[in-house]
């Protein structure tokens, strides 16, 4: 079976700077994969290229969801990429601050709903049923990530850790085949990180989706990922299992003086 996400010679340049340099990469169905590297290595840029926020300078982004044949998604707009089954979170939280927690998740359901202007104004039965269902579904997702006590709270009023979880919930609402998490543990305390660790595993196991995460917290990365890719200065410098990566001299060199506690 084709990998769920594959990139071939993916490159992204900003003027003279090559932020992503010729990266070959893949995530197989059901895997938890981590992408690590020092600050400014190009990890977020890689995410942006995959999810359509940037159009890559060259190379291919290929996806294959639901066992379908591979298709190339370069240059597709982010909303189209989401429709195809990729969902993401953001490194610096981008919630809809002045909407409630429930509404944030409801937005995530957008692509799964149909009603348009006519439905909104005339409230035919199909729209009413759809609305009722989306409210319920969204609530269920909140229960799943343990945020149900905040349903009607504005997103901006949530504590930091809860905001990160809400971002994941919102992405989950799109029913992705691949979930991309950009530093989900950033700013969390060890206890929260542990909860997050369990949550990610639970999401993968119960929903049968693949996960790609960027993370600086090495204990989290080493404990949950099955495969790790390491980038530095935009280039892929290593890939392998957590154990292989731990002992890879290249990786140690790249991180030396950067994340010495890794």
């Amino acid at each position, binding site marked *: 079976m084709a990998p769920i996400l594959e990139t071939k010679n993916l490159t992204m340049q900003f003027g003279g700077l090559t932020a992503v340099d010729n990266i070959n990469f893949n995530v197989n169905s059901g895997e938890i994969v981590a992408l690590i590297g020092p600050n400014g290595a190009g990890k977020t840029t890689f995410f942006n290229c995959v999810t*359509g926020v940037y159009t890559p300078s060259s190379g291919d982004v290929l996806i294959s969801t639901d066992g379908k044949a591979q298709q190339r998604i370069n240059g597709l*707009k982010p909303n189209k990429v989401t429709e195809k089954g990729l969902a993401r979170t953001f490194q610096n939280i981008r919630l*809809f601050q002045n909407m409630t927690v429930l*509404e944030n998740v409801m*937005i995530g359901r*957008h692509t799964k709903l149909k*009603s348009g202007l006519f439905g*909104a104004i005339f409230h035919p039965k199909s729209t009413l049923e759809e609305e009722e269902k*989306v409210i319920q579904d969204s609530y269920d997702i909140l229960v799943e990530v343990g945020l149900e006590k905040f349903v009607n709270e504005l997103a901006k*009023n949530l504590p930091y850790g809860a905001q990160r979880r809400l971002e994941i919930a919102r992405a989950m609402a799109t029913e992705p085949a691949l979930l991309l998490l950009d530093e989900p543990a950033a700013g969390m305390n060890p206890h929260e990180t542990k909860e997050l660790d369990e949550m990610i595993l639970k999401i993968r196991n119960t929903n049968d989706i693949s996960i790609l995460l960027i993370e600086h917290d090495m204990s989290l990365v080493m404990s949950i990922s099955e495969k790790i890719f390491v980038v530095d200065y935009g280039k892929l410098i290593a890939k392998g299992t957590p154990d292989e990566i731990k002992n890879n001299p290249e990786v140690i060199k790249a991180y030396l003086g950067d994340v010495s506690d890794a």
Partner: protein
Amino acid sequence: MLDIMKYFTLKEMKKSLVISIWFMILTFPIMVIKVNTIENTVVWRWASLLGMGIGSFIMATLWRYLLERKNMKSPLSTKKTLQMRVVEWANENPKVKPIALIAVSIFVLSFPFFSGLYQTSIMTTALMYVVLGLGLNIVVGLGGLLHLGYAAFYAVGAYTYALLNYHFGLSFWICLPIGAGLATIMGILLAIPVLRLRGDYLAIVTLGFGEVIRIVLENWNQFSFGPSGIAQIPRPGFFGMSMNLQTATTYIYFIMIAMVIFTIFVVRRLENSRIGRTWVAMREDEIASESMGIDITKSKITTFALGAFWAGMVGVVFAAKTTFINPASFTLWESVMILCVVVIGGMGSIVGVVVGAMILILMPEYLRAFSEYRMLIFGAMLVIMMVFRPGGIISNIRKKYKFEPAQAAKNADKEGVR
């Protein structure tokens, strides 16, 4: 709680004094010296210097107090605002709402019968601004797109009726949907080129668009009769009945009441729909909404189109009400005025927009002394609102849903008040 008395200690008063002296110097040439270079006279108005000194001293004290109070309030504070308490009280007492609704209905329905012709006419104007405000609110309040050319769509509606009536004798009721439809099409046409623009460029381009429409109307004499405009536009008919001015005014008043109810009904349903939510999401964060699968292009076009729809409709009523239109009614300041209604009333809030229109239109009418200063005061209010109360007088409260603790209830609580 911060105590305003703190600002009357010697040290704080000195600070306010320094500010007031700064303003006295700053405004000296313009406030004190009045020149007339036609008659070659110079008048020195020393009294305004004193007025400026005292006025700015008071303002400075108040300003610093309010600013500090605002900065002290932590975003997580659970203290309830007055508005929240009123809403809660209304929700707890089920009788409040129907009673209020009945009271408002009685007042609104009987208004033209106990007030004079002039009052009814002013109230009709205020109602027109309610609809205009609610329409612009879709673009600015919900969609977060600063639109400064809104009066152009209003003009499209007004000229549609005036011209179709002049050339083909079409009636008000036929022109009402045509005017709204044409404005909607214009809205879409404007949306297409501006879609790719960053937020602040949008403001300038829409402003330019509004000005272009006005200038064309002013100069294209064969089409629009230029600055002299179009007169003798008929008032709305009622099955061919002939009406005197009194009845016609009352009739238009009720047309506007119906239109306000229709608008509120539709906008309320829109904002809590799948489509309406995408607008708010777009306002909050374009990139995040795209990543949630929202087609921003489509969202922008729908907000522009729907916003224009209401302006076109009110434009037709405007032409019928005043029976005379010319391009001077559709300047940039008209657009800004409607923006003021939305911003001061409360962006994204239906009740806010209604209140905003009432205050902004009725106040200068009833407080004559105030009317000369109204643009000055509205300008200042825009700044003050943005600094101290960006949500407006009545801010938008998001809809709340009720779930039963253990297994969630099926029904959403529809009691949320906006």
